[in-house]
Structure formats: C-alpha cells, structure tokens
C-alpha cells in the first residue's frame, strides 16, 4: 500500500511535465502569434517594435529553450505576464479566479454526490415504482443533456417563470445556486445510475437476506448493510467526476458570468494568451492528477479486499 502510494506520487511530476509539453507544442504549432501583424485584432506594429516585444517576452528564442525557461519558472509558481491582460501576471489572475472555480466545483460535486446517492438509493429501494422512474429519468436527462443547455432551461425556469434566482453573477450565495445545479446535474445522474445498479446487486446478496432474516428493520438494512457495500464502486467514479466538473465549468461559468478560471480559459483561448493557457491547463491537470490519486488511495482504504 505504502509502496503503491509512493510510486503514484512519484509519477505525478512526469505526468505533469508530459502535459506541459503537449500543451506547449500544440500552442506553438498554432498558426499566428501574439505579435503577428496580420492576425485579427493585432497591433499594426513596426517590425523593430515586434522584434523588441518578442525579445522582451522571450519569444525569439528556440522552442526548447522557451520550454525549459517556462518549466523552471512554473515550478516556482511564476507563469509570467498575461498577453491579453498586460498589466497583470498570470499568477494574480489565477489567484483571483481559481478559488471561485474551486468553490463552484466543490459545491457542485458535493451536491452531485449527496443528490446522486439519494436518488440512487431511492431508485433501488423502490425499484420499478414512482421514485425509481423519477430518479432514472432525472439521471438520464442529467447525463444526456449538455450542461450549457441545462443552464438555459434553469435560467428560463428559475429566473423568468419563477423569479427565484438571478440570471448570473457571483456576488451573493443566491447567485451560486443555479450555476451549481447546472454543473452538478451531469455527475449527479452518473452517480445515481451507478448507485442504483450497485445497490440492486447488493440488495440481492445473501448477507442482505441474512440481515433481514435476523429481524433487522428496513432502515438499518439499507444503510448499514447495503449502502456500505454498494458505495465502493461509486467511489471510483469520483475521479472522472472531477474532470467532468472541471471542463464543465468552462460553459457554466461563461453562461452565468462566474468570474472563474474556466471563463478565463475560454477568453485566453481566442486571445492566444500562451502563458494563461499553459497555466490554466497545468492547474487543471495538476488538480485532476492529485484528485485521481486521492480517489484511488481512498478506494484502497475503503475496500480492504483491494491489494495494490
């Protein structure tokens, strides 16, 4: 176990380095540069001014040198200045936007886990009854329909038809509700589906029969005997879930005007803001890698049958 955990932790830096390299190459294979005079919206600068700027930002050096400089600085958390928001460093922007995305993501994930488990349990306990159909259809809609489409429906329903929540912004907890729900529905659906399937399997197991046979009530049977075992496969889902919530936030954040990292990523994409893009991709990547690792380790702790 310890050996496995250690080797997984040691694999983190190479994974991140590979991620940085891929992103770096993709960005530089892109036609057009921030200084390109024919690019859309570029400054009509004189060649000398462009050369100076390229020198200032280190864009005149060979690619491998640029990459090496980038990595050595990134390790210290220095991602340079944003090309688009010239007065601010990437670190400042990230320091401002990452907590917002983190808050939104954690709330969505918490809602997804709690809601998904509840729906899954209800569906399994009342199999083929009203609750089951309700939770299965909710799960199907959540999984199948893209979150930005769900966001539109949520705004129409809860901002216009029933004016409960504002259409966007991030000022007060009331603004948080709709983006969180929009982001949570897809993972919630997946968790509900898995919980239901896994519960149904456990409900038919012999030890559940034994628990009932010794006269245990329905509530302790479900919570102590069924749920505990049914929960294990659901934990493996949490890794991909982080990824879904992370990439999902691009869309949800831009629809609800949430000042988070996802929205900045979309903006920096069109502006060819190299430092910003690299930083965002790496932050997401590092975050996901760490979370996947945590999930795998927790899985090992929860299920003693698993040996690494």
């Amino acid at each position, binding site marked *: 176990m310890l050996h496995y955990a250690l080797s997984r932790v040691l694999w983190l830096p190479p994974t991140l380095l590979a991620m940085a390299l891929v992103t770096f190459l993709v*960005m530089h294979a892109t036609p057009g540069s921030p200084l390109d005079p024919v690019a859309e919206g570029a400054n009509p600068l004189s060649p000398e001014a462009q050369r100076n700027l390229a020198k200032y930002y280190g864009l005149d050096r060979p690619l491998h040198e640029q990459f090496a400089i980038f990595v050595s600085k990134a390790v210290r958390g220095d991602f340079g200045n944003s090309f688009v928001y010239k007065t601010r460093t990437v670190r400042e922007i990230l320091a401002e936007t990452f907590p917002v995305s983190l808050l939104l993501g954690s709330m969505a994930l918490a809602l997804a886990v709690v809601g998904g488990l509840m729906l899954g349990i209800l569906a399994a306990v009342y199999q083929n009854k009203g609750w089951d159909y309700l939770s299965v259809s909710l799960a199907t809609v959540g999984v199948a329909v893209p979150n930005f489409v769900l966001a539109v429906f949520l705004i129409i329903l809860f901002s216009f038809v029933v004016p409960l929540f504002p259409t966007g912004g991030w000022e007060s907890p009331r603004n948080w509700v709709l983006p969180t729900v929009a982001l949570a529905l897809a993972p919630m659906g997946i968790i509900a589906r898995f919980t239901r399937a896994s519960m149904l399997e456990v409900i038919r197991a012999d030890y559940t029969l034994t628990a009932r046979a010794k006269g245990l009530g329905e509530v302790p049977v479900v919570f102590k005997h069924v749920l505990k075992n049914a929960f294990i496969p659901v934990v493996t889902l949490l890794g991909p879930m982080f990824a879904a919530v992370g*990439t999902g936030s691009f869309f949800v954040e831009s629809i609800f005007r949430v000042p988070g990292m996802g929205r900045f990523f979309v903006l920096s994409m*069109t502006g060819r803001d190299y430092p910003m893009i690299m930083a965002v991709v790496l932050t997401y*990547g590092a975050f996901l890698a760490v979370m996947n690792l945590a999930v795998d380790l927790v899985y090992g702790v929860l299920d003693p049958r698993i040996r690494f």
Partner: protein
Amino acid sequence: MASSTPASDFKLGGGLRPPSDASPQEDLRGQSPRSKANTPGASRSRGSSLWRDGVRRLRRNRLAVAGGCVIVLLCLIAIFADFLAPLPYTKTNFARLNEPPSRTYLLGTDQLGRDLLSRMIYGARVSMLVGLGAQVVIVLLGVPIGALSGYLGGRTDLILTRFVDVMYAFPRLLFVILVMSMLGAGLTNIFIAIGLTGWVGIARQTRAQVLAIKEKEYVDGARALGAGFGRLLGRHIMPNALTPIVVAVTFGIPEAIFTEAALSFIGVGINPPTPSWGQMVGEGQQYIRSYWHLCVFPSIAIAVTMLSFTFFGDGVRDALDPKLK
C-alpha cells in the same frame, strides 16, 4: 506470441477486459465454434440470427424505438433542409430583429433578422454530419489500431497502451478545445479534432475484444487449418468482436454531437454564418434576458437529439449485450 501476450495483458489490460465484457460473447456465440471455422454457410446464418435477435429485442424497447424515430426524422430534416427551410439561413431582415415567434417567423428572428426556424433546420445538418461523420473517422482509426495491437501484442501493444494511457489522463474536452484552437474553426477540423481524440476509446475496446477472442479454440482451429493473418483477423476474430464496437459507436454519436455543440458554443466550432445549434445557444444566451427564444429553441433541439440518441443507444446496448445492462 503466446508467451508475450499474457504478460502485457496482465500489466495493462487487467482493467481493460472486464469479465462482463467478454462473457456475453461466449454465451451468444461460443457454443459451436467448430462449425464456424469449418462451414462458412452455417456461420453466416448464426451471425445473422444474433443480429435478428438484437433487432427484435430493440423493437420491443419502446423508448429506443421512439428515440430511433426521432433520429430518422432528424436525418430526413438534415438531408432535405434545402426544401424544408422557409428561408435561406443567411437571409437577413433588418426591419425585424430579435422578433418573438409569429406567423411569418414561426420561431422568431435572431439578432440579424434571420429566420430562426430555417437556421435550426440547417443546424440539424451540422449535428448529424458531425455525429455520424466523426464516428467514421473514429472507427477507421480506432478499430484497425486496436485490432492490430491486440492481435500482434508485444512491443506494438505496449506502445499503443502507453499512448492510450497518456491520452486518457488529459481531460478529453480540454484536448479537443486545444486542437481546435490550433486548427481553427470549421467542419473538417471538427472531424479531425474529434477523430484524433476519440479513436482511443474504441481502440481500447477493440483490443480487449481481440485479446479475449484470439485465445479461443476456434481461432486455433482456423490457424491449424492454415488460415493466414488477414483471414484470421478479418473472418474469425473481428466479426465476433463487433458487438461492443457497435455499442460504442452508438454512444459515440451523441458524444460527438455534444462536442460540436460545446465547441461552437464557445466559438471555436462551426464558422458563422453556417448555423449550428451549439453556436446559436452560445450567441443567444447573451440576450437571454430580453430575447429568450434565441437560445431556448436551439437548446430544446440539442436536448431532444441527445436524449433520442441516449435512449436508442441504451436500447442497442441492452439488445446486443444483455449482460452489460
């Protein structure tokens, strides 16, 4: 080869080849492998009866049938968009901007005075093209790579599985967005971007299938009878590995449609003025306060399409692989 595969399978394929994946194959087809190897006529009737069984099961599933009907309808709309659309999708009317639905403009007009209904009809074309076209790219790339990797084993397999692992570490959508920003917006580039990232999953699945099937006795039998590489793979292994691939393709279609909609939503997908539902939602959501119809109708179109494909895909999976449910 036999000595090299179990080792690589143990290391990399342990999680890739769940028993539930392989066992339905055994149940459905493995009963009399010998007749398959010897008499092609018998194998053909057996093969078609599996598919006939599948179609029968599919037709009993009402949700799947409903989904299938909507999909057929959408395809017809996409094909006959030129005849169905009341106006060309570029036709502007600056006297009537952002109008709500009326008798002249059934679903209203957009911010340039273009007929929303016509744009949505042409949007169906983009969605269907991407959904089906991307699958062609994915299958053409993924199936041969996966089959070869599973069949040859050894170093080829090792390189492929390592590569697949790295690709899996990347959040898929993030990678597609990166590739699109490199290639630029446009329909062909969407095919390329989705194909480049999507073949990995199907290659993985094909590989797992081939690995399971190539150890079967009837493959040994065919090899003993002198069947060559191409005949073994094409005639004996691949037809039996097809079911999960078909299921994966059915689920890949809505995923591709979703990806296109998401890309167009953030503006790196389909180039205007060609309409796409995702792009219409993306542009329309900015005016959601004042002109709700701009993003609501395309949103409904996306939702209905995605749900239909999901129901249909669930039906196909249940019909072909009853154990995977």
